[in-house]
């Protein structure tokens, strides 16, 4: 294990992942601390996926779905938003800062936005410090 920040990004294939792909095509640099996990829709993400990421040593987790009212599956991003909120409530009751989890809405043509999201999450981890669960994983 290294001291590197570990951020897990669950990215919707149509929104977040496509934006990340476009960021690459546009040659925009962003932190390599992010681990992108492609999912068919943000609505596929369950609270359990978020909690498991933390138990396996993530410092922060974000879900990047399509823009609101623009979900390929109509309401998957709304579902994801509620699950992120649910995960925050659980993490708060456990004693983990809720700022470590966030939901973003990105369009596939917003290649510039994905690196901005990564920067935002990296900056949050810098402020909050490594996840308190790191000591257990390591």
């Amino acid at each position: 294990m290294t001291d590197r920040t570990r951020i897990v990004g669950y990215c919707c294939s149509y929104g977040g992942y496509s934006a990340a792909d476009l960021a690459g095509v546009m040659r925009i640099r962003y932190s390599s601390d992010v681990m992108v996990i492609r999912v068919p829709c943000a609505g596929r993400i369950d609270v359990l996926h978020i909690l498991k990421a933390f138990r396996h040593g993530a410092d922060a987790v974000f879900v990047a779905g399509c823009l609101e009212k623009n979900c390929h599956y109509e309401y998957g991003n709304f579902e994801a938003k509620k699950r992120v909120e649910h995960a925050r409530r659980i993490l708060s009751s456990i004693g983990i800062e809720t700022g470590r989890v966030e939901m973003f809405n990105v369009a596939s043509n917003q290649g510039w936005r994905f690196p901005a999201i990564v920067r935002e999450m990296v900056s949050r981890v810098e402020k909050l410090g490594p996840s308190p669960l790191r000591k257990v994983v390591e």
Partner: protein
Amino acid sequence: MIIAEQKPLEEICRIIEGHHKILVAGCKSCVAICLAGGEKEVGLLAESLRLYADLNDREWEISEITVERQCEKEWVREMRPSVEGRDVVISIACGVGAQVMQEHYPDVRIVPGLNTSSMGAPEEPGIFLEKCGGCGDCVLHLTGGICPIVRCAKSLLNGPCGGSQNGKCEVNSETPCAWDQIYQSLKRQGRVDLIEKVIPPKNWIPSMSGSPRKTIRPEAVLTPEEKKAKEGVD
């Protein structure tokens, strides 16, 4: 269906403090419908407890199981391999399921992970409403199919009261007045005459009177001979 809600995680953690081998046991019936104790919620609670344990240096070994119905001993009996060797079982079935578990595994500590509140139905996704108080003396035939016992804040049998305003209840302005609903329902059915029928003081003896209420269906009760013949009956 029975409606229940998960206890706060902090409370569950306090209850199981001092135990080491923990089983989270769910039920795939009512509590799965109200998203409190089904297979998914079992996974979520178990994972939350693992995170809590990791963070707070607790040596908890947490396992999971969900059965079809925790209120029936036939299903509860099948849990034996998972229950044996556990210090404590967090039952996230309703209070009935938790008690059946305790009766079946008297040597294991069974603790509730849910607060069981009422009997009701889903109104819309994520919203569940109490519909029946289990009073044991149903009057739905007189009240247009709407229960005045639980849906009227004052359980009035001859309502509405003076606090009914524009079809809403004075206790909570978001709650429909049950007696307004009853009137509207009877009107739709062409039976408004029923609202003029005075319902006499209710017989509360069939409701929560003195002891656990036991219901006996003689045609289904096993004779001693049948009990002996039936394999696996305790």
